[in-house]
């Protein structure tokens, strides 16, 4: 199995399209963070201006942690698209290229091939989110230094500098977990089409519709929301609350995991009996 995963990784990471996401992140993140540095924290000052009338803020609140947190908030809706470029291509790409005929005539069960492809998708997702995290946080700290983190989610919360780094680490793990659900959905679509465009459009379409249902404050959607994975995609944000709602995070992690397993299971049912006609 490890040998199969190794060669799937090789196939994935020697393909140019794999690096589209990395290249975009490598451009967008530095551009945004340099722009924020040049802006000089006007956004933060605007947000805090009413509080500054009654409180005295000491130290540099417009720092690397603040920028890295802002980047995470800004990108978590766009990152799924970049994940689907690769996840949606894992199975459909073989159909498009005609290489199913090369690999599925071997004395290896389809289940093992399927699993090696899914593990490769999962590894790509984790590596990609990790790359985003290292670049975003590393560059922000380099450009703007450290300090306490101002979090503006439900009101304004200031987290002490010594209490921030591990929260980012956990947040990125949770973000990778959430992205794995997106990757699994793209993988599912990838199992029953013969072109990678379909999975990309399908996954993003569902993600956008679910997100809209999640954020639109209408009573009609209230009962549906708990059943949509998009309702739990921002689980990483809860790490920046105080106290951290671990029960809620655990619940979100379990639901996202259940969705991932469900998507992958359905994909496996399709793949193991699929007629290869390409």
């Amino acid at each position, binding site marked *: 199995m490890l*040998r*199969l995963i*190794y*060669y799937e990784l*090789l*196939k994935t990471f*020697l*393909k*140019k399209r794999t690096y589209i996401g990395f290249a975009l992140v490598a451009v967008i993140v530095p551009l945004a963070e340099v722009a924020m540095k040049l802006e000089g924290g006007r956004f933060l000052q605007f947000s805090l201006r009413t509080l500054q009338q009654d409180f005295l803020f000491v130290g540099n609140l417009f720092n690397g942690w603040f920028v890295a947190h802002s980047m995470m908030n800004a990108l978590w809706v766009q990152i799924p698209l970049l994940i689907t470029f690769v996840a949606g291509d894992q199975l459909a790409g073989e159909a498009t*290229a*005609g*290489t*199913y*005929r*090369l*690999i*599925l*005539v*071997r*004395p*290896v*069960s389809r289940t093992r*091939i399927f699993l090696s492809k899914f593990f490769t998708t999962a590894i790509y997702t984790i590596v990609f989110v990790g790359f985003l995290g290292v670049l975003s946080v590393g560059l922000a700290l380099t450009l703007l230094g450290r300090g306490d983190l101002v979090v503006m989610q439900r009101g304004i919360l200031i987290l002490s500098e010594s209490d921030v780094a591990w929260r980012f680490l956990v947040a990125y793990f949770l973000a990778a977990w959430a992205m794995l659900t997106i990757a699994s959905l793209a993988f599912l679509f990838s199992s029953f089409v013969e072109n990678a465009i379909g999975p990309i459009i399908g996954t993003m379409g569902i993600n956008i519709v679910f997100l809209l249902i999640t954020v639109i404050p209408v009573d009609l959607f209230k009962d549906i929301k708990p059943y949509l994975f998009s309702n739990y995609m921002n689980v990483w944000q809860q790490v920046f609350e105080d106290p951290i709602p671990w029960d809620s995070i655990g619940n979100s992690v379990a639901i996202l995991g259940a969705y991932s397993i469900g998507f992958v299971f359905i994909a496996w049912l399709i793949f193991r*009996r699929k*007629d*290869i*006609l390409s």
Partner: protein
Amino acid sequence: MTGEIILQTKNLGKQYKHRWAVHHLDLEVYRGDVFGFLGPNGAGKSTTIRMLLSLVRPTEGEVFLFGKSLEREREKALESIGGIVEKPDFYGYLSAHRNLEIVGALNGGATRKRIEEVLSLVGLSTRARDKVKTFSHGMKQRLGIAQSLLADPEFVILDEPTSGLDPQGMKEIRELIRHLASDQNKTVMLSSHLLNEVEMVANRMAVISRGELVTQGEVASLLEKGEKSVALRARPREKVRSVLSAHRGIDKVVETGEEFLVTMPFEGIPELARALVREQVDIEALVPRRSLEEYFLSITESDGASDKAKS
């Protein structure tokens, strides 16, 4: 010819919606055979081969490879099989060597030595490190054969291996198939719609038409079943028609371009030649035909060419 049955299909069939692509197919391939699987385009050859290699699930019937059911013991049944299905496609952004490494990994791993051996066998040693996307169709076809031989299988299934090749490429593939069968003791099944190709290399064959088996057996004995005809090129044509209509022992005459295709026993050829000469007909060519192609056409053409003349 009898011996160990390597491949057996029993009542094999595949239905797409309401159409049977393959129906009631019973094939038998024996160890040591070069087995030709013939049929016109769309006859169901590739669908059959996809079922033999577990790419497509049969709607009915079963496939046995080395006595093992493909349905129940898939991995064991495929252990000693290599094959290509239709045109060989590879990971174009990877080298030929890397592609074979990937294929080898699915067979439990292939050593560098073995990869170099099979690349050498198909004449691609010097291009081993080049990306496959730079390969011509013929080179991809040869790489396809290399990958099918990588695990040193006992049974090799080649779907239209000469498709799209120039005459020299076709000749090389034929020689390679002969080499596999005679020097490496491999059983080979090849599908083709180019009947003379099969006639040149196969000892047994099956003919499929509209998804159903028409016949199978030894090539030599099947040839005997075919109509025997003579291609005659002679002038003047009016005199030729007159002689042919009066001559006894002729079953059918079809005019094709400059030729008369005369269906008759070969024993009657000398007498026909004498009759033509007596009537001062200039004979340019008088060629007996008994090829598999004639036979193949006679049993697969639906309506057949209408007889232009029965003189």
